[in-house]
């Protein structure tokens, strides 16, 4: 009677060993390792993404600032272009006037020279000695 009572217990003990949870747990461990990654690397990614998004915000702010400066500078640029075109046009007209004035001055210098030449020829001829044909008879 006592042996009969012990037998199922032994059987249970044997069964307990035959249904060892370790393989299952190891399988579960393998699966976890296969399907997961260290949280540290995940957080590194998250941190990296955060830094990048922060950088993006900063870059966009700077880009907006630069674009704003470009927009602000555009009217000045246009004004400078207008001023340059206008001053060039004025100077071209002034250069043309100067060209004409110099040409006129050259013409006047020639006229003055011709008059000075006439005056010089008066002086030169008045000092020249040859007698006119009609006077030659009186110079003997």
């Amino acid at each position, binding site marked *: 009677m006592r042996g009969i009572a012990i037998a199922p217990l032994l059987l249970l*003990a044997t069964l307990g060993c035959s249904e060892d949870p370790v393989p299952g747990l190891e399988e579960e461990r393998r699966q976890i390792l296969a399907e997961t*990654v260290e949280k540290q690397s995940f957080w590194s*990614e998250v941190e990296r993404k955060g830094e990048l998004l922060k950088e993006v915000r900063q870059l966009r702010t700077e880009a907006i600032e630069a674009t704003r400066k470009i927009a602000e500078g555009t009217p000045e640029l246009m004004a400078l272009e207008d001023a340059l075109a206008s001053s060039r046009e004025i100077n071209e007209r*002034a250069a043309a006037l100067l060209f004409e*004035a110099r040409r006129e001055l050259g013409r006047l210098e020639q006229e003055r020279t011709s008059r000075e030449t006439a005056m010089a020829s008066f002086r030169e*001829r008045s000092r020249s000695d040859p007698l006119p044909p009609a006077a030659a008879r*009186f110079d003997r």
Partner: protein
Amino acid sequence: MKSVRRLTLLLLLAGTACNDGREEALRAELTRLREERVEKSVAERAQLETREAEGAAQQAREELEAAREGLLQQEAKATALRAAVAAEVERNGRLTAELSASDQSIRAELRRIETLDREISRIRKRATLARTQGETLAREIRAEDPEWATDRRLEALAEFLDALAEESPQDPVLARLAEHSVARVRESSESAATAGAALAKAASERLAFVYGIEPEREDERAGKEEPPG
């Protein structure tokens, strides 16, 4: 009953002994792993988002670079334009100064020309008048006139030649004509009138030569010889 308790304990011991404590360790490890690890899909999504953020950052960098480049180009263009405008302003100053100087030179030349024209006109007018006077004397000293008339005209001729020599002291010909010629006319073998007329003509030719005066035209002469009224 006591034996049953012993047996149960044996069974437990047996159960424990059959995995040698491995189960407990695994369970502990599993607990740790669940705490320390995260599902790959979650991590992959984080990586994807990071890559997207990297792309966005790269794009933002390029956009910023382009904006900075645009700003630099604009600043460079503005600097170049300012320099060009400054150069034109300077050129304008130079042109204005040169125009002013040219204007002054033109005015000065005009004044010199006007002065010279006046002087040339004065000299030629005087010379023309004297030449005409000489021509007139040459015509008026006629061989058929009486001697006293010829003498008076020779005296007038001598005064005329003296005045010419005095007005043009540098002229050796007029000086010689004035100094010697009237006396020689009187000593001349030909008639005094002919010689005097020739002398007056010589003085007239000298003036025409020196001052480039055209010979008196026939119509001018005829006009002068017409009786007044």
